[in-house]
């Protein structure tokens, strides 16, 4: 690139050479080098960084980035049946309208005065999640559902003073990896077997493994493999009889129709907010929630910020602030509970907008609609020769495992066949759960029409035959 004069950068007001010179003179410096006198010569980079040439105009930049991104094929262009922790739901336009507003998008750590709106929006988010979960305390979101689960287990360990957690062996292996990394050395993660037919937690195995060392019994509903865990009440009793905390991870999208875990005994509830108004974004729309009852022993174990409501010196004016701030690492560094920092607040605000738009009726309707559609998909797929749908015999929410052992084809081959037909088949589980054989995790949501499902079944029929 040839250039004869200094660039004035649109994002850098003082990059105008005369201004720069005047400011240097104002502070008595000869050059900006003067400011780096503490950087030893041996550490100075005396050559330009070896980077691609810049795209100085906004148009050139746009063309470049869009050019690369145009190589992607989206779930709008293809018909997708992928889920496994990231879900294609309709995102209401108002959700995007709110989270794109610069006042929210570029706020950060303002005080409850100059950022009153951020505090109120996140308090309301927590309040609506509280209604959905039937819990009184909800945190400002953490990174994702993995982190929420890991922290829930560590909270349980601190509450009980114990060092083991029991989790179902149907858990996503990636999440299990996270739990093991994050909980060591405080908590050892042990797996509990599942019933082969339903996928439900094996209560006999749970009873055999639960003990006075158990800090938490953790279940997921719906499970990673799509089925609805129907032993929640029994799991709760077994956990509580041994003095353990019962931790339930839940898909919030299911709670218009399914009973929230708190109602069958969960002490700590966690999960991922992505279904509630976040685009999939290649997995970039995740955010984690944690909820408990409003008891001091729970509240004091949250690492996250908790925003509470408070009066101001003007009658009737709502104010907000941090609840029990002294428990956080912001206040007391390593003496705090785990750690807190920037995470996923904007997605919390967005989830609040989503819940406000949907209301109780919207969530009930979407939940029922999803269950009807996924059930229909199961019924239609099960008509195909060699296809087992679902693998687990029991109720499902939006996801279900489909077995292809009888087709003589691998999931990889089947998904390739679907891909050339413009369809993204379910997640291949044959490596994660080899004991299930050749199978895949399919997801059907409210975005799928009957015609979409019929198209999938027809294509599958062609591919497996």
């Amino acid at each position, binding site marked *: 690139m040839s250039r004869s004069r200094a*660039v004035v950068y649109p*994002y850098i*007001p*003082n990059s105008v050479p005369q201004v720069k010179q005047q*400011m240097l003179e104002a502070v008595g*410096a000869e050059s900006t080098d003067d*400011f*780096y006198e*503490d*950087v030893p010569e041996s*550490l100075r*980079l005396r050559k330009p960084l*070896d980077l691609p040439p810049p*795209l100085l105009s906004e148009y050139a930049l746009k063309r470049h980035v*869009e050019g690369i991104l145009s190589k992607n094929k989206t779930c*709008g262009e293809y018909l997708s049946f992928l889920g496994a922790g990231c879900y294609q739901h309709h995102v209401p336009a108002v959700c995007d309208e*709110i989270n794109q507003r610069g*006042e929210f*998008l570029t706020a950060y750590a303002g005080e409850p005065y100059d*950022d009153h*709106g951020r505090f109120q929006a*996140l*308090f309301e988010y927590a*309040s609506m999640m509280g209604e959905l979960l039937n819990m009184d*305390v909800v*945190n400002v*979101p953490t*990174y994702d559902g*993995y*982190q929420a689960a890991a922290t829930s287990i560590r909270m349980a360990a601190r509450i009980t003073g114990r060092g083991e957690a029991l989790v179902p062996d149907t858990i996503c292996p*990636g*999440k299990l990896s*996270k739990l093991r990394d994050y909980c060591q050395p405080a908590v050892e993660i042990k797996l509990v077997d599942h019933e082969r037919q339903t996928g439900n937690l094996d209560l006999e195995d749970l009873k055999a493994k639960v003990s006075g060392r158990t800090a938490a019994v953790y279940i997921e509903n719906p499970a990673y493999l799509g089925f*609805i865990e129907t032993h929640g009440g029994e799991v709760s009793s077994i956990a509580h009889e041994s003095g353990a905390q019962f931790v339930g991870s839940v898909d919030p999208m299911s709670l218009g129709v399914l*009973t929230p875990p708190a109602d069958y005994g969960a002490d700590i509830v966690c999960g991922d907010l992505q279904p509630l108004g976040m685009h*999939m*974004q290649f997995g970039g729309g995740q955010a984690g929630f944690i909820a408990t009852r409003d008891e*001091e022993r729970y509240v004091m174990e949250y690492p996250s910020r908790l925003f*509470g*409501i408070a*009066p101001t*010196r003007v009658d009737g*004016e*709502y104010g907000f602030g941090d609840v*029990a*701030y002294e428990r956080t*690492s*912001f206040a007391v*560094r390593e*003496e705090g509970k785990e*750690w807190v*920092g920037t*995470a996923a607040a*904007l997605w919390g605000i967005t989830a609040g907008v989503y819940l*406000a738009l949907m*209301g109780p009726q919207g*969530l009930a309707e979407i939940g029922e*609609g999803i269950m009807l559609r996924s059930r229909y998909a199961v*019924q239609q797929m099960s008509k195909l020769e060699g296809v087992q749908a679902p693998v687990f015999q*029991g109720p499902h929410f939006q996801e279900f495992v489909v077995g292809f052992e009888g087709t003589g084809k691998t999931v990889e081959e089947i998904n390739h066949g679907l891909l050339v037909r413009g369809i993204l088949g379910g997640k291949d589980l044959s490596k994660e759960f080899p004991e299930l054989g050749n199978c895949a995790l399919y997801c059907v949501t409210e975005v799928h029409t009957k015609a979409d499902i019929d198209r999938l079944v027809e294509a599958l029929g062609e591919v497996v035959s």
Partner: protein
Amino acid sequence: MEDITRHRYEEGKPRLRRFHQARWDEPIIFELSRQGQRGILVPEVEDEIRDQVGDAMASLPDYMCRKQPPGLPELSQPQVLRHYVRLSQENLGTDVNIDVGQGTCTMKYSPKINDALARAPKVADLHPLQDEDTVQGVLEIMYRFEQILKEISGLDRFSLQPGAGSAAIYTNVSVIRAYHAKRGEGERRDEIITTIFSHPSNAACAKTAGYKVITLYPDEDGYPDLEALKVAVSERTAGLLITNPEDTGIFNPRIEEFVNVVHEAGGLCSYDQANANGVLGITRAGEAGFDMCHFNLHKTFSSPHGCGGPAVGATGVAQELAGFLPVPVVDFDGQRYHLNYELPDSVGKIGPFYGVVPVVVKAYAWAMSMGAEGLREVAEIAVLNNNYLLQKMLEIPGVCAPYARGKRRIEQVRYSWEELGRETGVHSEEIGLRAADFGVHYWTSHHPFVVPEPCTLEPTESYSRDELDEYAAILAHVAREARSDPELVKTAPHNSTVHTIDPTPLDDPDQWATTWRAYKRKVQQHEE
């Protein structure tokens, strides 16, 4: 005809703004609810599906069917929109204010084009488990951005997965732990060293991962104390987590010696570069001998802060640690990009999928819009702005910049209002709340307040000289008010969205309420 502008200037300088923030006195959203209203309708299920499937809930045990619908508010769509737009107006984001008052957080301009690129369907509508052939574009961006970070840091491999700076610190600690465990020294090396002017998460993450934390305090000149480090290291040292320049804006000139001392003791060194704004293209982690570092893409690399995320803490390591990074990383074979899960010593998965990819897209676009010269210009102007503001600040009676007196600073300064406080009884926090009356945000500092009555200002490259003058003029004005009318300052804010908050309920288990339902219940209990 009157010249209106005449009243806007005094001796050629603009007067302070007669600012008033939006004050909607907005109800809590539940108060706006009226039974039966709908905010959005969901897609209808076709009759054929209903006819075939029948009762969707029939297969469920009765207790799993929700009996009480969730007590969510019922609002029409325009009400929801207006409510949230009003709340949005009650914030002072970087798009609105001269956001130099949140030092350590690099509140720079987040270019709008980058937001537009990242929210396009070609990013928004990608499922993370799609066939790799259908996501070559986004993988290419991730790969290219990693190459940029490698060059900026002088390190060899990056993970873009951690969800912000603290998650990156935790990831680095996890890598340190795995490294020593592999060498059979995991149990013995149970201490991590950091400094008091490094972000609190360095200490907190180390503790969470099971380490004993040793915190070094500065020497008399404000530099991290090398002699104290030499005393602290031993065969128990697992690693050093350190920021440079520290929160004081002072660059540690002996950083190589710090690294060497820890290396000689067998520990690893992690460079917290959450905020690298002042040293882009100036100095790198690699040359100083660091084994790892992290960059906050929502700070140095301009992606918006989002009220506190979503964000990315990109974690970089030297070659010998590359195998310990979280999986997957993005590889390129010359023709095709792919997700590589085969790292021999990986700490495993640290979150679902691949991190906050849209933030990576924004950061990539930003870096590409700047280039090597532009990144260096960012650093130089950020540092020039900071030293310019430093000079303006030191003209205000009652404030000082402790440590390294008379020296320049890098990208930020931790100031102290101790003298003003002693004279007037006005605290730093109160100065900040009064500053809000003029439309700017101000933050004290991380705890503990080693510097008394602190504030930390970081002008970044994004504010003009006039804006820096305005910010300094506001603080000068507030400092004068602290002397002439301290009550006015102590009862601030006056022009903000709300007035002085009574914090009593926030630390009282009988009164605190993080949800509306808890609040209503406690109020009712209190009344009974």
